């Protein structure tokens, strides 16, 4: 399967040769599926739908139980045995059953569409991340890194539209804040990712991971490592940076007017973003599916390592929600422009110097 064309098979040739008649659609569709389809297990279960939903459900439950412990209380207790396992399904069912209240003076097409986009578009980005050397759902080859940032570039627009559409003062301010935050937070990340691509010599995520076979990029590019780690909090709006959804000031930021399953979608979107950025962080800096280098011998690269690193990072990031208060908007912008962007450029400079000297 040639990896440089996005769509392959007769459909591509037909489209180019524009003899496109209604008659041979069924055959084209079947042939397209045959060529481009991945094993069903991969699509449905691991890197695909199952993993996204499974992590969202696990993260909600884990966060409520883990943070409850930090607050010296028990967390979900009655629903599904003492561990409260069914609490998340109960919440989802409740949200599913609830009536979706759409206020009158609202631009309802945008209002209804935005939460759906917010939870589906970032999950597209998840397909680019290599879970194993041949285990990439959407193999666009050397386009995968810029494709990830292209898709993730759309993600901040959606809260801005829905904040504007819900015609509510609090969501209006929340929408502004999303715009400020992504402008000041996203640029350093792209520069750091560029640094990684330069050091790995290619923009294909699989090659980036293979380049980290014997030394993870976290070691040489430590500044980029720290910045991208901060980037996870900024992009997925976790605690030190959950400024757009600051319950304390703005009732619920841009999500104030949502109820029912739309609110459920916005909650799930938060975890999909968090998942996508954490996996990207592991792929770029912690050597994706490569095992740790023990006594000079790189252990076999296997999907288990990716999931293990992912789990450890998730636990650490969730714990930080209890540890740090929230930043103010102007402090966040100052941090983004005055500290993160120059540091990212510095990191890029070091990477180029190391590349020229051939150190790594």
């Amino acid at each position, binding site marked *: 399967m040639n990896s440089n064309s996005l769509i392959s098979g007769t459909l591509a040739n037909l489209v180019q040769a524009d003899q496109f008649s209604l008659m041979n659609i069924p055959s084209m569709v079947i042939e397209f599926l045959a060529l481009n389809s991945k094993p069903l297990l991969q699509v449905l279960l691991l890197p695909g739908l199952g993993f996204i939903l499974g992590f969202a459900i696990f993260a909600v439950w884990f966060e409520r139980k883990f943070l*409850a*412990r*930090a607050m*010296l209380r*028990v967390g979900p207790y009655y629903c599904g045995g003492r561990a409260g396992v069914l609490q998340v399904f109960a919440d989802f069912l409740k949200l599913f059953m609830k009536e979706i209240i759409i206020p009158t003076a609202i631009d309802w097409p945008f209002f209804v569409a935005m939460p759906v986009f917010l939870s589906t578009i970032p999950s597209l980005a998840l397909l680019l991340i290599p879970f194993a050397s041949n285990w990439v759902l959407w193999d666009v080859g050397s386009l995968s890194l810029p494709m990830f940032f292209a898709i993730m570039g759309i993600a901040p627009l959606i809260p801005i539209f829905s904040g504007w559409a819900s015609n509510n003062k609090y969501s209006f301010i929340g929408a502004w804040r999303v715009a400020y935050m992504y402008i000041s937070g996203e640029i350093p990340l792209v520069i750091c990712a560029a640094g990684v691509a330069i050091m790995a010599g290619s923009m294909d995520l699989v090659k980036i991971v293979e380049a980290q076979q014997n030394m993870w990029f976290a070691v040489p590019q430590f500044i980029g490592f720290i910045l991208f780690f901060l980037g996870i909090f900024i992009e997925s709006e976790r605690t030190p940076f959950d400024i757009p959804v600051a319950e304390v000031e703005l009732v619920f930021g841009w999500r104030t007017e949502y109820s029912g399953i739309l609110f459920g979608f916005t909650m799930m979107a938060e975890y999909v973003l968090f998942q996508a950025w954490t996996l990207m962080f592991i792929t770029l800096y912690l050597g994706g599916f490569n095992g740790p280098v023990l006594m000079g011998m790189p252990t076999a690269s296997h999907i288990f390592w990716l999931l293990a690193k992912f789990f450890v990072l998730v636990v650490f990031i969730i*714990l930080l929600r209890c540890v740090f208060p929230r930043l103010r908007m102007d402090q966040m912008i100052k941090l983004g422009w005055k500290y993160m962007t120059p540091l990212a450029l510095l990191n890029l400079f070091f990477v180029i110097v190391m590349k020229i000297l051939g150190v790594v």
Partner: protein
Amino acid sequence: MSWLRKMLKPLMIVAPYVLRNSQTVAYPTERLMFFERFRGRHVFHLDKCISCGICARVCPDASIEMVEIEGKDKKYPQIDYNTCCLCGYCVNQCPRQALEFTDIVEFATADRSELVYSPERLMEVPDIEDILPMMKRRTEAYLTDKEMKYRKVKDV
């Protein structure tokens, strides 16, 4: 580097909190033992009462009313728990300690009229076990140096 140490210090403080046991009591299955002076629902001792009516007059919310009960010619206090704020004046001012507090707090009812306790009803105090059938044990809070712990007093 002191900035980094200051940044990590709150993390070092919060992380061990996850390992502490929780400070909550699972109410219906375990119920706390209240202290001896706890102000719960009243209990009325008919024999001690000389029906002087001080409790009715001293009550700040006028929720005590002296009513006749059949078989007795004197009047005895009837407490209306809709307005009673359990302030304890009636118990303190009663010359014969005819009114006392119990530690029953579960006396919510469906409608308001049931909350008006006649003297006879005030006299008998239901046992806690049949108010809370699902209660398994009684616990008690005690303080150690590091944290507040809960221990089992008795099984039910």
